[in-house]
């Protein structure tokens, strides 16, 4: 099993714990990764303000990726959403595809013929490897751990092209947590958007969305909030630090990438999973796996 890794923007700069844990987990599960070179931003930030810029940027990346003759994998909900959407648009609209192809040929001497499949790490784990196979490889049961999962919006919506899980109440990440022996707690703000995208436009809303979830998690008591998206992760981790600094309110909810707890269960050390880079320390985990 081998994939071309589309690294994206935020992960290689700010979330090296996500990148290193994904690499080491995949290695342990026998999945090979080849870093995709010559990429650019997936286009996601422009999808809402300049459709053509978004599509050209996404298509550029898909054309570069097709050189590898591999499915693409990414760790980011935004990148995966953008590239899957672009693939669908281009495959369903041959006129548009031809237009984009002419643009790519003229400017970069590349073209789209067979557009590769685009997958999120979670797709690879759930669909390609499968729960049973992962379960067989678990060396450390994460018994006594209570986690809250946060899947994020763009991995499941719009379901017209992100058809992976229930688009309103997704549950596959819960299953992936539970096969490690841990509990995935049910909570009322579980499906609430992280609010990252309100930043810079309506900061009050962003902070309030964050607080509602943090308050509930503080009340019910969890060992960590499990995410699979860099934007959600940063919103919850940096957001908590910001609130602690500005408002002197401490929630102390450790934010953890799913690949980090998966790695622990597979017997990989916290250091090899980048836990030293988690800014809100998951004390119970580090105590057990020191």
């Amino acid at each position, binding site marked *: 099993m081998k994939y071309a890794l589309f690294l994206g*923007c935020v992960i*290689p700069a700010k979330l090296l714990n996500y990148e290193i844990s994904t690499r080491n987990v995949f290695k342990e599960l026998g999945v090979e990764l080849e870093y995709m070179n010559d990429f*650019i931003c997936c286009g996601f930030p*422009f999808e809402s*303000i300049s459709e053509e810029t978004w599509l050209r940027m996404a298509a550029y990346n898909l054309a570069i990726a097709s050189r590898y003759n591999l499915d693409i994998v990414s760790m980011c909900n935004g990148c995966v959403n953008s590239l899957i959407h672009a693939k669908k648009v281009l495959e369903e609209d041959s006129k548009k595809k031809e237009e984009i192809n002419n643009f790519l040929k003229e400017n970069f001497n590349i073209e789209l013929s067979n557009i590769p499949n685009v997958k999120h790490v979670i797709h690879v784990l759930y669909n390609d490897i499968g729960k049973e196979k992962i379960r067989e490889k678990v060396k450390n049961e994460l018994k006594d751990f209570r986690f809250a999962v946060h899947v994020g919006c763009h991995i499941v919506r719009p379901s017209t092209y992100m058809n992976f899980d229930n688009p309103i109440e997704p549950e596959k990440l819960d299953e992936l947590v539970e096969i490690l022996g841990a509990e995935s707690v049910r909570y009322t703000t579980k499906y609430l958007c992280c609010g990252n995208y309100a930043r810079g436009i309506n900061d009050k809303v962003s902070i309030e969305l964050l607080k509602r979830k943090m308050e509930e998690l503080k009340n019910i008591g969890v060992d960590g909030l499990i995410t699979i998206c860099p934007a959600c992760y940063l919103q919850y981790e940096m957001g908590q630090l910001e609130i602690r600094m500005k408002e002197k309110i401490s929630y102390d909810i450790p934010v953890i990438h799913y690949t980090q707890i998966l790695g622990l269960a597979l017997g990989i050390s916290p250091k090899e999973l*980048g836990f030293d880079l988690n800014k809100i320390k998951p004390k119970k985990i580090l105590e057990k796996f020191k």
Partner: protein
Amino acid sequence: MEVNVLDIKEEVKKLNALLCYQCGTCTGTCPVARIDTRFNPRRILNELKIKGIEEVLKMEEIWYCIECFLCMEKCPQNVKITEIFFKLYEEAIRRGIKKPQKYVGLFKAIYSTGISTGAYGGRGEPLSGMILKKRETMGLPKPKISQDAAKKIIESTGLNKLLG
């Protein structure tokens, strides 16, 4: 390459804007609306019909959508609500009605470096020497980014003239 100018009314109609029967499911499920009542997607869809696009493009609150797609998923009339907001944004920026700082920050980063590292707070900066060094000590390869390709694409659609 010239990019076709949108016929905004036609575009919005194609996204089922006129099928809205004002049930309010969108506003009821919207995570923003439950905190900030200034944002009300149902009302915006109504004003699209009654006052027309010209007026709606000027409304500050259209920019409060956080693109979670929940309303669009739940809409019983299959109104592509989130995508209607996207069309409004594109048109408002194209006409110079609004130059949202969030997107200017993202644009600047991507235009000059090919990527944006600013998922939190909308800022962006290139991969610094410090980050590259940290990557190296962790055994992570140096990302190879096609900086100029992003610039060329942005210039091809003229987005640099609107946000630069």
